[in-house]
């Protein structure tokens, strides 16, 4: 179905930089997302994910750098290539004045690889009538519709910008199920951007972390998780300053127990703690969401924060 010859990468950027006035939304981003699998893109708000998507789709000009989708330069995406790239935008924006039926007919007539079975299957999870206007749909129903439209295009790459934001549990579950199992997912690369760590833990094959427009980590979620260690201890005789703690991500005091989350330290950190005279130090397991959150919030570590209970 798809041209396998075009490239091994679904998305590729080289030195991609975007400036909005004095602010840099993307900094020298070199990103390569391989074909196939679910790629999660994580970053705090303002990390530049939406800017990245707009540039990659040629809807925004980068200040410096280049980007490609399926090997085609973003600046000059031809209509055929656009047909192979699905997009589910944040908020699931669709023209509110259109009826579901008319919208479907229109998309069906445009997309050459349209799969009605997939559309019906996905929309079956959400109770959406063809006569309804898009603006009358609930948030979850709109999410379902936009997902169904995107999946029925049978794209080679599907970009999803926070598709479950603001959805209730049922709708969220339905969205994830559709993403994972609807249609022939095997030849589709999902680029999934989310703040929901539980979703990422469930569905992602690859994890890429963006921070202030920079790529800070990429790899499998498990590998990333393994690099984060959590240690609890009762205290130090002389507490070290936060900057002296190697690889410090987070340092909290909960109920007189000091909890230190560190990055890339391995078991050696225990020895370091001992060398500081830490009392009762031991490694404790940490959940994926906490691990990622500690990583993303590491810049907030200050000596003052230590004293805050």
């Amino acid at each position: 179905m798809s041209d396998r010859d075009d490239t091994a990468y679904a998305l590729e950027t080289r030195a991609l930089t975007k400036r909005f006035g004095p602010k840099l939304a993307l900094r020298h981003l070199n990103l390569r997302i391989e074909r196939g699998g679910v790629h999660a893109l994580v970053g705090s708000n303002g990390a530049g994910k939406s800017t990245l998507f707009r540039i990659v789709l040629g809807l925004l000009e980068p200040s410096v750098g280049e980007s490609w989708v399926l090997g085609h330069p973003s600046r000059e995406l031809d209509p055929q290539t656009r047909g192979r790239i699905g997009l589910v935008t944040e908020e699931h924006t669709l023209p509110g004045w259109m009826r579901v039926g008319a919208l479907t007919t229109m998309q069906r007539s445009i997309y050459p690889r349209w799969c009605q079975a997939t559309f019906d299957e996905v929309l079956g999870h959400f109770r959406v009538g063809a006569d309804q206007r898009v603006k009358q749909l609930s948030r979850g129903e709109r999410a379902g519709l936009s997902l169904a439209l995107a999946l029925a295009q049978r794209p080679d790459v599907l970009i999803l910008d926070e598709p479950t934001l603001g959805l209730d549990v049922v709708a969220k579950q339905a969205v994830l199920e559709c993403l994972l199992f609807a249609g022939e997912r095997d030849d589709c690369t999902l680029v999934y951007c989310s703040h929901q760590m539980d979703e990422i833990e469930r569905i992602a094959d690859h994890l890429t972390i963006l921070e202030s427009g920079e790529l800070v980590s990429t790899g499998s979620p498990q590998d990333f998780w393994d690099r984060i260690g959590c240690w609890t201890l009762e205290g130090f005789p002389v507490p070290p300053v936060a900057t002296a703690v190697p690889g410090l991500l987070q340092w909290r005091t909960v109920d007189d127990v000091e909890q230190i989350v560190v990055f890339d330290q391995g078991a050696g950190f225990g020895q370091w703690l001992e060398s500081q005279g830490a009392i009762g130090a031991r490694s404790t397991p940490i959940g994926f969401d906490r691990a990622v959150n500690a990583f993303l919030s590491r810049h907030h570590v200050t000596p003052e924060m230590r004293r805050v209970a």
Partner: protein
Amino acid sequence: MEHLIRGELDRFRFLTLGAAVVHLLVLRVSMTLTPLFVNDAAKTSVALMAYGLFGAGLGLYQMSTYRRGHLWAWLVHRPVGAGRLFVALSAAAATVMALAVVAPALAMTVYLDWLTPTYVDARHYAMLPFLFGLSMCFYWLGAFVAVYPRRGGALAGVVVIFFLSREAAGLWIFASLAAVAAWLAALAWAAFRPSPTSDERRPAALLGTVLPVAYAIFWILMGSIALVRSVAVGLADSGVAGFRDFAWDDYWDEGELMHLEYLDPQGALAHGLRLASTQDQGGAGEGQTAPAARAAALLAQIDLADVYEPWGPRFSGFADRHQLFFDDRRHELLDAEGEVRWTFSHDLMLFVGEHRRTGEAMGFLGLGGSPTPSAGGSERFASVPFVVDSKWLVFPRRLVEVDFALDQFDLRFELPPGETVAMPFNAHRSFVALLSTERLYLFDPRSLELDDGPLSPLASVAIPGSERNLSRFQIAEMIDSYLVSFVFGARNFRDFGEARQVVVELPIGGGADAHGVVSDLALGAGFPNWYRRRGFVLSPLLQHGHDLLWNLIGPDREERVSWADIRARAIPGDVLMPTAMLTLGSLLATFGILAWRRRPTSDRGFWLAVAALCGLPGALACLALTTRNEAAGLESMASSERAVDVSGLSAGRSPA
């Protein structure tokens, strides 16, 4: 893309329906006040503005909703080219216009044509495509403004629209409409790209925006300079504190055109006489010359004389056949009792009658002057007449009096070949004036009233200058002669005509050319040369381009400047110098703007060429349309990349 069109129509269904109903109601209600096809300038401009606002509103609304938020991605990110999407959106808008603008107007026209005695010409139907084109022009303007990323771009669309304000002769108006529509559609089409905020790189698209923006800035500068100068003059004249006495005639000196423009008729005539008498006395050594003495003698009488300034429409262009009905009042004739409205039909070249109260058809009125029940029975007019005072039919060379009592049209005066009417009969109690493009004729009012046949003038005089340059003229009846003062200078404000006052004396009953020049004064312009030619100083290209383009599409008026006019005029040093300095300054300023915005070198050639050609407006267009180069300084940042925290974290491995 018919689905997108259908979607848009579904979206605008209430708007379209509502607008159509409102439009129909407004047309119907307005018909009870004035006939639909009889417009004056005010009614026309209100109506056209309403159509324009509707079109611009639709374009703005439609495009800006798509530009907002993520809907833009939904619209353009699909396996359809941006050009086709734009065509589909425009097609939807065209359908809305056809339903909301054209259909109600068509319904009313058809209703008038078939169900009422009102005679409907082809030109009345021709108004429908014009309205359609007009609203589409405004639609594309709105769409362009909504999509174009920089606010300065809006100027481009607005200025292109201005070319529609000029009414071209006859059906040629469709040529200018098509040109404006094509320009605006091209602007909007070029702006409609997946990434509208990125810099336009296609030279044609860039030039298509930059030139109109420079042109708009040109006019803003022209207006600003005039405003600043008038304020400065006011301040200089009355002191900063005392603004209260500020008035133009206090400022201008005697002997300057502007001074004369503000004088009353008597004062204007006296001005010519006074200056002529004093000038010659001072200038000639061997005593007073004959004209100067005469001027002094006449000046002594002028306070007692009856000075009259004819006032009324000056005809510089007669209506063309099939002219759209933007200003049709001059095509209407009411009979003596005011009961029958005779409207001129361009198709039949006859007047068609309609009873004002009953709406009954009253037949046709041709050259013969008596109504006939069928169009075939009347002798057709050769050209479209202007009706003045519901009494006169003015043709380019003939003045015909309407006589409803006798059911006839009387030819009262015919101009010799080569002359056309510039101002028709203008009656005063002791004479009647008629101005042609060549001469001024004075007639006896009694023979105008009492006779029916052709009139012979009491006196006539060749206009001592160009009629188009004639700003005003006064006539005084003296004891044994008429005194006529011609003030020239209508074209002097842009230095295309001399400012002069000529006073001639016509002996009553004298021959056709028996007259003496009493006074012939060159007047001061009242403005420095650079000011009168400020358009040229700002940008010779834009000024002359404007003149030529404007003339191409407009009727003949006094401000018309032809290529021959431009070529015939020398450029004085005090105009050339500021022009050269300003162009040089604009080049430097453009260079500075490009450096300040850190534009890449590849941009320089284009913008410097624009500044060289368009002068200061070009430099300001560069300021309005370029943005700071985002890439500037980022390459160096990339090389001195700041250390990513993660690598720092990993490096900071604890000592084992």
